[in-house]
């Protein structure tokens, strides 16, 4: 079990008042807060050994290189990749998926081929495939969702066929919290010689991930949602696939030989890391992984599910609050909802006045909003430092919102 009091001491940002109320931060699916360990690791790098990596002969450069490449080893272990070369540092999940779509997708797709997605994809795992489909003539196919917003293996099996070349699926939905059957779907994809691409932005921060067990071909996630800094993410790819792919960006750091008219590339992963890499980001991510490992991913997952259950139990007492998605025991710590007759922006504004930070809008998942038949929703998302008291403050603020708008309507 998590000692939340101890955990919260590592997050000084949580100890403040917003609009005269104690901050209740429930926008973790957008970005998490950072513990002091991560902030100090960044500060330490910039204060003591800031230097460019790989090409320097001097001492600081080799310390920085150790930090940067050490982060790669740490990520490899964190997601149980088979080899360190399978870990590519990118700007974030979006860049990671764009790399696969632009490089692997354009080289391997043609007219008649199909890319299989779900309607719950975040735009980052949707638009890159729309673009590669347009460029190659491949078609997009969607696995229909079950009524509770889950993906069934049977529906996946019915959609994937011999024309399928790529299956791209979110691991955990950033709206519904749905945990998708990646391992089972990857197996079906492989039976049809398709590859499996996974958007792990919402799973990696909250549960232990084993890419070899999932047997996915590519897996993307971002550091900033898992206590790390912004600006860095990971593309995991099976080594033979990464090796056959062309780089996505060209320039310094990623080359082997360069002439006036042509050049050759470094080995993986470096051919995908053109330019000065995200050194501080990698070092911060490394500290974030240490922090999460110390707390324990299994305990974090349990803690968040308990909070989601606690929140959903309380919300179920309100007939005029609709919660979207599967039951709490089948979802991650994300609760998306609407108050009847109150627009989610208005809900979020009133909650903010009570110090409660939530998200309102379409959550970069427009097709899913259409599937839910709503223009927008409000979303509370939990992390390891949230408490039942946070949920209570959240529910109290929702009751205030209902009262406030009930009153203004009545006037």
């Amino acid at each position, binding site marked *: 079990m998590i000692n939340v009091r101890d955990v919260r001491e590592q997050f000084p940002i949580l100890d403040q008042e917003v609009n005269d109320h104690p901050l209740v931060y429930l926008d973790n699916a957008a970005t998490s807060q950072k513990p002091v360990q991560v902030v100090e690791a960044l500060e330490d790098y910039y204060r003591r050994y800031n230097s460019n990596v790989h090409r320097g002969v001097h001492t600081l450069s080799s310390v920085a290189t150790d930090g940067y490449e050490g982060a790669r080893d740490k990520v490899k272990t964190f997601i149980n990749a088979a080899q360190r070369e399978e870990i590519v540092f990118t700007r974030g999940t979006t860049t990671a998926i764009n790399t696969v779509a632009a490089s692997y997708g354009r080289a391997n797709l043609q007219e008649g081929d199909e890319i299989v997605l779900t309607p719950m994809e975040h735009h980052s795992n949707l638009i890159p495939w729309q673009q590669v489909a347009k460029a190659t003539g491949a078609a997009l196919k969607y696995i229909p969702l079950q009524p509770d917003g889950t993906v069934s293996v049977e529906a996946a099996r019915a959609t994937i066929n011999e024309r399928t070349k790529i299956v791209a699926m979110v691991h955990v939905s950033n709206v519904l919290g749905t945990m998708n059957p990646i391992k089972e779907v990857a197996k079906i994809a492989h039976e049809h010689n398709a590859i499996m691409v996974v958007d792990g932005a919402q799973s990696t921060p909250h549960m232990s991930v084993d890419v070899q067990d999932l047997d996915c071909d590519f897996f993307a996630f971002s550091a900033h949602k898992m206590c790390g800094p912004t600006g860095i993410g990971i593309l995991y790819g099976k080594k033979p696939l990464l090796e056959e792919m062309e780089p996505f960006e060209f320039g310094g750091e990623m080359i082997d030989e360069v002439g006036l008219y042509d050049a050759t590339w470094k080995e993986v992963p470096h051919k995908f890391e053109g330019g000065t890499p995200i050194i501080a980001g990698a070092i911060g991510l490394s500290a974030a992984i240490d922090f999460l490992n110390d707390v324990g991913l299994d305990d974090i997952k349990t803690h968040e599910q308990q909070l989601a259950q606690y929140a959903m139990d309380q919300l179920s007492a309100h007939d005029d609050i609709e919660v979207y998605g599967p039951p709490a025991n089948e979802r991650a710590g994300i609760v998306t909802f609407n108050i009847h007759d109150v627009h989610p*922006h208005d809900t979020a504004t009133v909650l903010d006045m009570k110090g409660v930070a939530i998200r309102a809008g379409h959550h970069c998942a427009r097709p899913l909003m259409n599937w839910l038949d709503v223009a927008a929703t409000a979303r509370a998302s939990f992390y390891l430092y949230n408490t039942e008291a946070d949920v209570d403050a959240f529910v109290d603020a929702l009751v205030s919102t209902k009262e406030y708008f009930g009153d203004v309507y009545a006037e």
Partner: protein
Amino acid sequence: MSMQSNLDALYRQVIMDHYKNPRNRGEIVGDALTVNMNNPSCGDKIQLHLKVDGDVVRDARFTGEGCSISLSSASMMTETVMGKTVDEALELSGIFFGIVQGEDYDDEKYDLGDVEALQGVTKFPARIKCATLAWKAMEKGLDKD
């Protein structure tokens, strides 16, 4: 100012009245131009329908979805610009963009009617885009360039 009075300043009664009972909601029958304006960060979508006769805005109606601030602002905007000349409507728009940024305006020279109630949005920077959505659509529709 307390949080409650800030909220009350944002959600003035007149705003909620326009939200609950929007004026000029619907499409224009016959010849009219339609401007689509989205707030991509939040999903608000407004379609503004304008009928301009010579230099005068004869009719202004709106359809779409959004929060209380964006829809009430659309309702007020259509009331305000109807019957005005294109230049007058664009000038009022400029005044309105100033108001939501906290700027004063000459209330003897400009009669903004209910629109003045949206002043409260200045305390809520995240909601300024909601208030200005319909006005941006109007500017786009009347833009002579």
